[in-house]
């Protein structure tokens, strides 16, 4: 069955809250009802059909054609099915995602995968700051699921992550994995200064070097069985990450400024 397809009519003048457009929220709705879904934008609400051309299809498979960096909250709280955006999206894409598969073929704004609980979120382009991170006042960031970013990401990727896996095939900005409570952050390229700042537990794997805080302690170079196991697990999602995980790593324990049960593994050059 072909997917439910929404084509953006034109570039948006205002930011648009796209959170109602997730498979579980569309369940049982007719095509007419879907077209009349009220979306929040600017000062006045508008209907979905005002901004998108809708082509009927399977609601468990939604395709949004023509992205825009003003499309916010795409796939928020989605818990099943598949949602593909053929372009860029705005802030908080995949926030609180708890199942299914969300794919953005373009770039995402800040707080993508914020507080994500489960499921798979693939970003083909780049991601903004605070990938997976919590909003102001929240204790934990990402707490489950898998995020794969094919490009690079901004600052504080994986901030306050509690569980789950983030794979970044490009570079990461400053403070990657800051305040992580646990979980796994893999950066194939290098990361900006102070990766793992205030890391409590969890693993940060870096393909290239980063200027680490002096509160990370050098524990020597190893080939870890656990990373080989993880390599086999991540291979279906990212071959590049699997290659990195099979290398040997310099292990830095920290952040000793806080709990110090975490680790940063810096891949060897070979």
């Amino acid at each position, binding site marked *: 069955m072909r997917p439910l397809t929404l084509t953006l009519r034109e570039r948006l003048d205002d930011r648009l809250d796209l959170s109602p457009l997730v498979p579980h929220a569309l369940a049982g709705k007719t095509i007419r009802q879907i077209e009349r879904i009220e979306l929040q934008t600017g000062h006045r609400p508008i209907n979905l059909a005002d901004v998108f051309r809708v082509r009927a299809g399977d609601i468990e498979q939604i395709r949004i054609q023509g992205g825009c960096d003003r499309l916010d909250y795409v796939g928020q709280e989605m818990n099943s099915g598949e949602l593909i955006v053929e372009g860029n999206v705005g802030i908080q894409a995949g926030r609180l995602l708890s199942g299914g598969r969300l794919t953005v073929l373009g770039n995402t704004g800040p707080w993508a995968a914020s507080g994500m609980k489960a499921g798979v979120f693939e970003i083909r382009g780049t991601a903004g700051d605070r990938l997976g991170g919590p909003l102001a006042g929240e204790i934990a960031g990402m707490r489950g699921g898998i995020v794969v970013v094919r490009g690079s990401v901004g600052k504080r990727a994986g901030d306050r992550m509690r*569980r789950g896996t983030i794979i970044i095939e490009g570079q990461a900005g400053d403070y990657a994995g800051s305040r992580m409570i646990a979980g796994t952050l893999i950066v194939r390229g290098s990361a900006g200064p102070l990766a793992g700042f205030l890391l409590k537990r969890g*693993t940060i794997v870096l393909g290239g070097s980063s200027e680490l805080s002096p509160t990370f302690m050098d524990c020597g170079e190893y080939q870890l069985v*656990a990373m080989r196991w993880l390599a086999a697990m991540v291979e279906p999602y990212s071959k590049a990450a699997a290659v990195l995980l099979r290398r040997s790593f310099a292990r830095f324990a920290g952040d000793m400024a806080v709990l110090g049960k975490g680790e940063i593994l810096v891949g060897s050059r070979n």
Partner: protein
Amino acid sequence: MLLTVRGVRIDDTFAEAFGMRATAVIITADTAQWARQAALSMTGFATSVIGCGCEAGIDRVLTGKQTQDGRPGVRVLLFAVSTAELQKQLQTRVAQCLLTSPGSACYAGIDGEETLRLGNALRYFGDGWQISKRFGAKHFWRIPVMDGEFVCEATTGLSKQAVGGGNLLILGRTTDTTRAAAEAAVAAIRKVPDVIAPFPGGVVRSGSKVGSKYKGVPASTNEVYCPTLRGAVHSALDPDTKSVLEIVVDGLTSTAVASAMRAGISAIVKLGPKRGATRISAGNYGGKLGPHHYHLRELLP
């Protein structure tokens, strides 16, 4: 009634087997030898639930492509009479034999509707330095040890469909030919997936009956199969039988046990009565104790 295949007589009887609880773990190490060594230690003193708590053995050897961490490994099966006993045996054996073995790692070897604790029980050895790792539904523990880390999956599966006690009695004219027949049968059984032959080299020479003339002895020698007592008891042996060996088979499913017994019979028959056994029989308790009956006539090659 006696059936004869290629000169080997096969009794028209059946092996009687019991339902058991079973689990499996995959052991890997830096080399195939060390994976095997760890497995041998873990499955040592695990021939019979009567005195060892569990029956265990190596089910199959795995290449790096077949294991979770890309290193060579083996799959070990463990069988016990209750879930509690199986959990206890698994925990102590993994702790004393796998955790201790150089370079070893341990993963779930079976999916089950219920699970047994593996790393979840052993993580405390890490004394606070243990690291939990999850990926999707998979969960494992990293425990720092003197040669690096012991990686151990959190849980493994439990099977309640397992069968223990499938058996073949191998009767021959000399100890050498009978042993040769048993060895051939064990070699064939080892190739069958999901089964183990838990006794030394897969073979048991002290087949037992239930009970004893002595109080408190649960099992005693099965005198009707002892050649040296042939004249003194109501013997089950032929005049020319000088030696009897038994192969016991435990399997994850009843089908696996039947396949193993069929493979064993086929190997014995192939060897023939001159170089191997003259007769094949099976042990049972009259059919009232065990729910699984394997009739030899249905397992002929």
